[in-house]
């Protein structure tokens, strides 16, 4: 276990034992500051050709900044970049491509209504006329596709193909531009477990063909599964670079957070109470007229966590939205035995809250919080019309500020300053503000979507504990998450959603990731 991070200052003096080829990428002393925030601090790293190198770190640790510097989106304040031993300036992404670097972003940059072929040549056309470029591209695309087992139809339209396939198009785009080094940013976030496995097979093959791959992720499992070496980043610094075979998840997590982390959630068996939420044949049509929920039925009892697993975009968001009063629907929803309105003006977030439903939305930045509002304004968001926050015709601002301070203390929000704008808190602390607000109301039912998305490991532990504590106090919890591990460890029952349906329900003790993965992909072996 060598901490290579600290080397590299007397440049080249300490290098890895005799390796024939120079490192594919070598960064020396990279620093980058955004205003007062030091996003990258004196980072040195060297990646051997033909390997998969993982970069792991919490949100805000500086992984993305580092990769953006490598891809020419940002310019480093200090430090040098060497590509295959050559010192290289990368002022923009064109230069990065010319240097043989390809990037697959977390959010794909594809034109939805273009074909695969058109997307691949976009920006790399040879001349003013498209035909020759297309013909040439088709040939090399077929070759590339075969060489790396990508299996992509060049004439398919992007919007018609699945997410996993779209990702392969992104990889193809990079390969078509003769990338020798591929950077993948959180590539499995949108994939089913099966699709992720497929991706890993492709990456394996690329590595065998001599490509160098940098995999940015926060999932320890992926690092362990596929990388050769792994670098850990924390607070803008590269804290360690180790051989994957010489480490384990617990140790990596500790290096990421800087202290020991409980990866498993400890919980007692559920003490089930009465049925709190009953949903029958729920249908939801979105603004574009697409049927997103196609008759969903489920129930949640007091004292249990029902986890909804599924790949993003299979109706989970709509389920939360309609339960939280953000969207109209049809069918019946009963809370504590009483039916609630699903349409009309009495169907909104306020009336839902009055019925004892608290909602931690999937996206805290656009829904759960008003980023420009200060923490104290956010701590009553959605409950701001409650009598207790008014003093005459005005709002009781000083009272709310005091209350916010107390709640922020209880939920360990750092810094505990209620006057700070929400946007100035880290992801984890923003989520704690939302949780404090919703859990402190002591709701009968908590809807919670992606509770730990973009949240650092340390805060994940805290958030999971809060959810379990609420369950143990006899409340019903409906949990939606795309993180299968999270669903498995928190839920007392798991329902899997696919294409607007509940594909099936399982007990966590009687299922595994493989079975859930199949359900998430729409395959139900029991009925098939």
């Amino acid at each position, binding site marked *: 276990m060598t901490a290579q991070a600290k080397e590299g200052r007397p440049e080249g003096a300490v290098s890895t034992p005799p390796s024939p080829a120079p490192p594919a990428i070598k960064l020396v002393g990279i620093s980058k500051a955004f205003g*007062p925030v030091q996003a990258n601090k004196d980072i040195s790293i060297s990646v051997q050709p033909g390997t998969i190198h993982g970069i792991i770190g919490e949100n805000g640790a500086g992984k993305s900044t580092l990769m953006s510097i490598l891809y020419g989106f940002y310019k480093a304040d200090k430090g040098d970049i060497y590509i295959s031993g050559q010192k290289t300036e990368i002022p923009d992404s064109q230069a990065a491509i010319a240097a043989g670097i390809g990037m697959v972003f977390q959010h794909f940059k594809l034109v939805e209504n273009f074909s695969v072929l058109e997307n691949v040549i976009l920006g790399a056309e040879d001349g003013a006329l498209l035909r020759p470029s297309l013909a040439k591209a088709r040939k090399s695309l077929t070759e590339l596709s075969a060489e790396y087992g990508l299996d992509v139809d060049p004439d398919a339209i992007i919007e018609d193909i699945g997410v996993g396939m779209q990702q392969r198009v992104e990889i193809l785009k990079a390969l078509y531009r003769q990338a020798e080094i591929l950077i993948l940013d959180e590539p499995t976030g949108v994939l089913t477990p099966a699709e992720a496995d497929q991706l890993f097979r492709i990456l394996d093959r690329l590595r065998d063909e001599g490509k160098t791959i940098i995999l940015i992720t926060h999932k320890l499992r992926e690092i362990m599964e596929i990388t050769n070496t792994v670098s850990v980043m924390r607070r803008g610094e590269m804290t360690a670079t180790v051989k994957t075979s010489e480490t384990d998840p617990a140790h990596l997590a500790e290096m990421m957070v800087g202290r020991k982390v409980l990866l498993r959630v400890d919980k007692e068996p559920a003490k089930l109470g009465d049925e709190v939420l009953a949903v029958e044949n729920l249908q939801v049509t979105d603004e574009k007229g697409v049927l997103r929920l196609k008759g969903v039925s489920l129930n949640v009892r007091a004292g249990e966590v029902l986890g909804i697993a599924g790949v993003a975009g299979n109706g989970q968001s709509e389920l939360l939205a309609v339960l939280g009063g*953000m969207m109209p629907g049809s069918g019946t929803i009963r809370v504590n035995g009483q039916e609630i309105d699903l349409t009309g003006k009495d169907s909104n*977030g306020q009336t839902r809250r009055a019925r004892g439903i608290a*909602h931690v939305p999937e996206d805290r930045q656009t*829904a759960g919080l*008003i980023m420009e509002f200060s923490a104290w304004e956010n701590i009553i*968001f959605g409950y*701001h019309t409650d009598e207790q926050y008014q003093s005459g015709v*005005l709002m009781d601002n000083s009272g709310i500020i005091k209350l916010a301070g107390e709640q922020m203390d209880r939920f360990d929000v750092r810094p505990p300053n209620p006057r700070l704008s929400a946007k100035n808190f880290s992801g984890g602390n923003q989520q704690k503000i939302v949780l404090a607000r919703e859990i402190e109301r002591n709701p009968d039912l908590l809807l919670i979507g992606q509770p730990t998305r973009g949240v650092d490991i340390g805060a994940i532990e805290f958030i999971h504990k809060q959810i379990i504590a609420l369950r143990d106090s006899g409340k019903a919890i409906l949990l939606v998450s795309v993180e299968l591990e999270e669903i498995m460890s928190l839920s007392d029952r798991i329902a899997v959603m696919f294409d607007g349906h509940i594909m099936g329900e399982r007990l966590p003790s009687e299922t595994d990731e493989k079975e859930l993965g199949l359900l998430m992909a729409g395959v139900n072996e029991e009925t098939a």
Partner: protein
Amino acid sequence: MDKMPAWADAVLVPLISLILAGVLSALVILAIGESPVEAVNYMVKGAFGSTNGWGYTLYYATNFMFTGLAVAVAFHARMFNIGGEGQAMLGGLGVALVCLYIPWPHWSLALIGSITGAAIFGALWAAIPAYLQARRGSHIVITTIMFNFIAFSVLNYVLVNVLKPAGAMDPATAKFPEATHLPTLHDMLAPLGIAFSKSSPANVTLFVALAACVGVYYLIWRTKLGYEIRAYGFSESGAVYAGISPFKIIMVVMLLSGALAGGMAVNNVMGEAERLVMNSVEGAGFIGIAVALMGRSHPFGVFLAAILFGFLYQGGAEMAFWTKIPRELVVVIQALVILFTGALDNMVRMPLEKMFLAMRKKGDA
């Protein structure tokens, strides 16, 4: 971490913009062979050198406070109401009807009546674009600007065909009755022993405008409604999550905005002209946009910006009167101020932010 201290954002940026606009204006004046120093001299003297000048400056500023607040309130919900002109025209119609057709015993009651009339008419004129935006998604910028033209035509029709006294030649109403005449600053300050110019149009409406500034402050930052308006303005999906109805917010905020714009008519129609004429608004609705921009949509900022534009209006008129600088150049100067404080805001802001960052870094090191 904020990039700049709040005072720099609120004071320094507009100030530098103003100075830049001033420098450029000076160059323009130099270019036509006149002396900028002399011009500034006349402007300042004309606007602030006498109680008469003050009276006009404050009169214009009163108009701009109303229209500026109108734009500012709507902007907190990210509604860009550029229909202040039309709403103020209709507000004038409301004032005229109230003053002409209700026999008021005393000006104070008439004032309350006119404020109500102006607010209702202005609000109703804003209500139609608001409804179209809230229900049909028709863009508020397009509809409000169209409604300015419609307002002009409506007013023209009503004045010519309905309200014009028989035999009169110009499209205007009859003079309002004596009991509706508002006390001017001269009338109000005389008992205190202050001799304020008798001929200047500044009147009691100034205090209504100041009260409106204070009221808007409380509304936006201290009430439930203001909280909802700001929340909606920052994030519509956030508002929906919290159970705030976008329809309600758009309607309420536009009605308020229209009412404020309409309120201007109390000053110019009732307080100054004492009858309703065509084109009584004289572009104050549009100046309101610049005032709100420069005032950062904050009532105190709107107050200061309104005074500034009052100064530009009055001082500009005086400058044109006493120098060979043509009146059109005054408009150029006003335009430069709007350009620098509104449109080119970032030109000043960005280097300033960088400067503050550099200073902070030095401080840290």
